[in-house]
């Protein structure tokens, strides 16, 4: 029994290794995206500093806030035009394209040959879930690395008096560059921890959901559904729309009516666990064959 578990674990790790190794070039995308976002941040900072000289210094903490700020609550009756936050949507699309591409296509390709040798659908499925977690961690890791590159390239805009300063959030940037006038009620450390942790956890939950739904629907349909969840999350500031947990401006430490991060974490974990469980049942009944082609 112990040997069997160890063997299954090794198979899962092998699947993670293979998944990452065979797609490593694609991780340049989040790296470049992070760099572009970092440059955009400093560009905006430079623009503002022309008018308001005190807005000159930024920090890595500000950059994280900039990328994961999302949008404030959308109130339709204010005649305000609804605009989906582009950065938030692009991150979600990036993760979804990777995940959908890997799982759906793999079963029509090399994954089929692996599956037959695994002799166990559950191990294969859990291996894919594990790959998904590692993949998302690398995805976000590369995005942060891109931000770091941009930060060091624009070092003159930074206060580098110590590690504490790098991770601080400047209120003047928060108010003037992000146009958010609401006060932050949590400590900077907690805010940054949430800004780093919650998008990752939410992405993992959404990706598991995506993999699970792909057992029932075609990958492109699932992709559209996920985009729908992302857009609706931006539209409705409600606890049930997972995308809200990827936008810092939607949290209750900025907006009193906003979502609570502890609840978000619980919901993310519940969605992830349910998706793994239901996905495993669905995959157990799944017919491995080309979807877009003829059946026979």
């Amino acid at each position, binding site marked *: 029994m112990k040997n069997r578990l160890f063997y299954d674990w090794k198979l899962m790790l*092998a699947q993670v290794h293979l998944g990452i190794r065979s797609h490593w070039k694609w991780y340049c995308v989040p790296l470049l995206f992070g760099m572009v976002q970092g440059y955009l941040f400093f560009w905006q900072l430079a623009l503002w500093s022309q008018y308001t000289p005190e807005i000159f210094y930024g920090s890595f903490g500000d950059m994280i806030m900039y990328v994961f700020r999302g949008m404030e609550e959308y109130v339709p009756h204010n005649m305000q035009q609804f605009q989906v936050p582009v950065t938030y949507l692009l991150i979600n699309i990036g993760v979804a394209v990777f995940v959908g591409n890997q799982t759906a296509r793999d079963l029509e390709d*090399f994954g*089929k040959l692996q*599956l037959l040798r695994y*002799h166990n659908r559950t191990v294969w499925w859990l291996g894919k879930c594990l790959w998904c977690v590692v993949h998302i961690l690398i995805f976000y890791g590369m995005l942060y690395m891109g931000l770091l590159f941009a930060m060091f390239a624009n070092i003159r805009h930074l206060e580098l008096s110590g590690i504490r300063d790098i991770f601080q959030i400047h209120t003047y940037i928060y108010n003037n560059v992000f146009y958010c006038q609401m006060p932050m009620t949590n400590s900077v450390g907690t805010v940054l921890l949430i800004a780093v942790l919650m998008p990752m956890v939410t992405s993992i939950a959404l990706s598991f959901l995506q993999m699970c739904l792909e057992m029932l629907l075609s990958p492109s349909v699932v992709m559209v559904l996920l985009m729908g969840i992302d857009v609706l999350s931006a539209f409705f500031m409600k606890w049930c729309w997972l995308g809200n947990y990827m936008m810092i401006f939607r949290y209750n430490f900025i907006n009193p009516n906003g979502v609570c991060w502890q609840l978000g974490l619980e919901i993310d974990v519940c969605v992830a666990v349910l998706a793994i469980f239901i996905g495993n049942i669905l995959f157990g009944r799944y*017919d491995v064959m080309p979807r877009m082609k003829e*059946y026979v």
Partner: protein
Amino acid sequence: MNEIIIEDYSKKIKNTEVLSHVNLRLEGGNVYGLKGKNGSGKTMLMRAISGLIKGSQGKIIINGEVLGKDISFPRSIGVLIENPSFIGGYTGFQNLKVLADIQKRIDDTRIRNVLKQVGLDPQDKRTFRKYSLGMKQRLGIAAAVMEYPDIVILDEPINALDESGALRVREILKEQKDNGAICIIACHDTEELEYLSDVIIDIQDGVIVGER
């Protein structure tokens, strides 16, 4: 001896019965050729025996174990169904090594030998992405037979192969047959199919119409 018993097996997809009440008994040491038009259900029958699809009715018993109940997949099987698909950035050897490492039944020498057997160079540094259609097909065959499986399923094995490649397939099938494997092949070239097979199974609209 290896044995596959298919009992009253049917498969329905979106209200279309792609396999209908199939009853077959396949024994080791034989090559079974599936003959039928496009869309007759040959590939679907192969998928069913591989455990890749779940039947709507009936059962498949492989060496005494019911597929989908006692086992999810046959314990020892090599398949080439549809186009051979491997990791684009890996060489032929690396691709086979990844697969062989799952069960660890064979060593690197066997992988090299099977590559030579299908007419590929084990030292070739070209990645799968750069392989010609024929080379891809050869690698697909190598992956299917390298672990001396009890069941070998080859769908259109001589597709994209030249004459020497087709001859190699004949040799490989003979070797597998002599090892006691159940070989199941489908091929559009009727002459070649008749030459390669010990038993021809005629299939039409998902129904087995003859066995000779």
